[in-house]
């Protein structure tokens, strides 16, 4: 395989792609992106809903495609880390035509990969953020010749892209997994902090509405520890019920669309995670509730 590393939003122009494909029997071309914006929503799970339709890398006009589907030029082991929940924008050809991107899903390490991915260049206006193309040739012995041609073409097209060393598919897959794991880790962290802050904020607002109640409980004999336990338990119950409901409805939504489903342990750990973060986030509101001054809370104005 050949890797082409493009800086930022560099896209391979249509005619270049077409020329390369024609001259070198390109089997597969995959774009690796730092974000998922590049892939259309229809890509997710589409293989399940529709018979797999293959289009060529650099899409021919629609009429031509219709006349000869499926094109045999694309296939094999192309892969892509795809985040199921990512917001994605449509993918267009340079003619402004929406490209039909279809693939077969496969799960590796909690992520969805696509086999037989078909991809086309995107419009200038599209936020593609493609950082790398991977090209697989039909014959491995063509690689060095192809690299030369590709480099020359990129240079001629004045693209800020360079051809990297050939890679093994397994190494590439490992790299993509690692990249995705890192990305989801940092997202998880951001999510955790956001969830914690949200729980605290909601809890604080809630505790200000419940001053009277907390004051009454204190007067009737609730200790501060009792109130802390009350508020945290309520938060955890709400988070538990909420995240189970949320997980159930999103899984059934995915299922109804025929999308690939996340592994059960991924869902379960998500629920546990939300509950733990909620417990942490509930600490501040719980302490605030427990510190209520019963004399003030009960005073009839």
């Amino acid at each position, binding site marked *: 395989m050949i890797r082409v590393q493009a800086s930022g939003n560099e896209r391979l122009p249509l005619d270049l792609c077409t020329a390369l494909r024609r001259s070198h029997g390109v089997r597969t071309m995959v774009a690796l992106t730092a974000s998922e914006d590049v892939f259309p929503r229809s890509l997710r799970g589409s293989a399940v809903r529709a018979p797999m339709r293959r289009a060529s890398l650099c899409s021919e006009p629609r009429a031509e495609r219709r006349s000869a589907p499926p094109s045999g030029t694309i296939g094999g082991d192309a892969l892509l880390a795809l985040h199921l929940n990512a917001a994605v924008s449509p993918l267009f050809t340079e003619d402004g035509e929406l490209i039909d991107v279809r693939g077969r899903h496969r799960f590796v390490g909690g992520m969805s990969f696509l086999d037989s991915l078909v991809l086309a260049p995107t419009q200038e206006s599209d936020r593609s953020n493609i950082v790398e193309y991977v090209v697989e040739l039909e014959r491995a012995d063509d690689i060095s010749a192809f690299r030369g041609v590709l480099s020359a073409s990129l240079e001629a097209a004045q693209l800020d892209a360079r051809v990297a060393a050939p890679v093994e598919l397994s190494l590439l897959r490992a790299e993509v997994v690692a990249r995705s794991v890192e990305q989801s880790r940092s997202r998880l962290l951001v999510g955790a902090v956001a969830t914690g802050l949200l729980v605290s904020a909601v809890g604080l607002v809630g505790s200000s509405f419940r001053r009277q109640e907390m004051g009454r409980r204190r*007067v009737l004999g609730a200790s501060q520890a009792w109130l802390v336990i009350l508020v945290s338990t309520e938060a955890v119950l709400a988070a538990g019920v909420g995240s189970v409901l949320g997980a159930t409805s999103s899984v059934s939504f995915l299922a109804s669309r025929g999308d690939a489903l996340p592994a059960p342990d991924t869902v379960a750990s998500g629920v546990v995670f939300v509950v733990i973060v909620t417990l942490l986030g509930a600490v501040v509101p719980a302490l605030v509730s427990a510190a209520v001054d019963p004399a003030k809370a009960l005073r009839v104005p």
Partner: protein
Amino acid sequence: MPSDAVGGIRLTRVTFGYSSGADPVVDDLSVSVNPGESLALVGESGSGKSTLLYLMGLFLRPTSGELTVFGTNPWNYGDRYRSSLRSSRVGFVFQDACLDERRSILDNVLEPTLYRSTRSPSAADDAAKLLRDLGVTSPMTRRPTQLSGGQMQRVALARALAGEPVVVLADEPTGNLDLRTRQLVVDALFGHVKTGAILVIATHDLELAALSTQQVRIS
């Protein structure tokens, strides 16, 4: 029968102010109440009756002087000690009934049992009986919002008396009640004193104050 209240409530030269700069609301006050006695705190509005009651209810801590309840200074112990004293030995009645509107009247009466370490198996039956004795005729499952002000105050009274507390603290308990309910509340409170309990009432109702063993005028 209320359990032992030996030592009563004793305030020795107690001073309290909400802020250190301002004049104290309670200034160098000494007073004590023993089991089987009642104490009326009388004075104009804003004179500090509620404040004194909150000091006895252990919500406020004296700035200086000593307060003992049943012979010990509760401020030498932690929040758990003071809370358990409140939940199992003190009953509170307020001018405003302060009920939980989301729960039935029976559950309101039983609320203090939530905070106790033990709950008698007959608590619910006792609470229902007490509600009936106090003239609450609505079904026990009603919410307080469906009751009249007088009925709500009866429920609050039942909540205060249900655990047979040795101390009852009442803040303007007859504040805005009709005559019949007022009489019922007065009878119930002073009837409870006869069982050996301590009653402290903050009130500007001089008739009510006259029924008490002792009166303290606050200015």
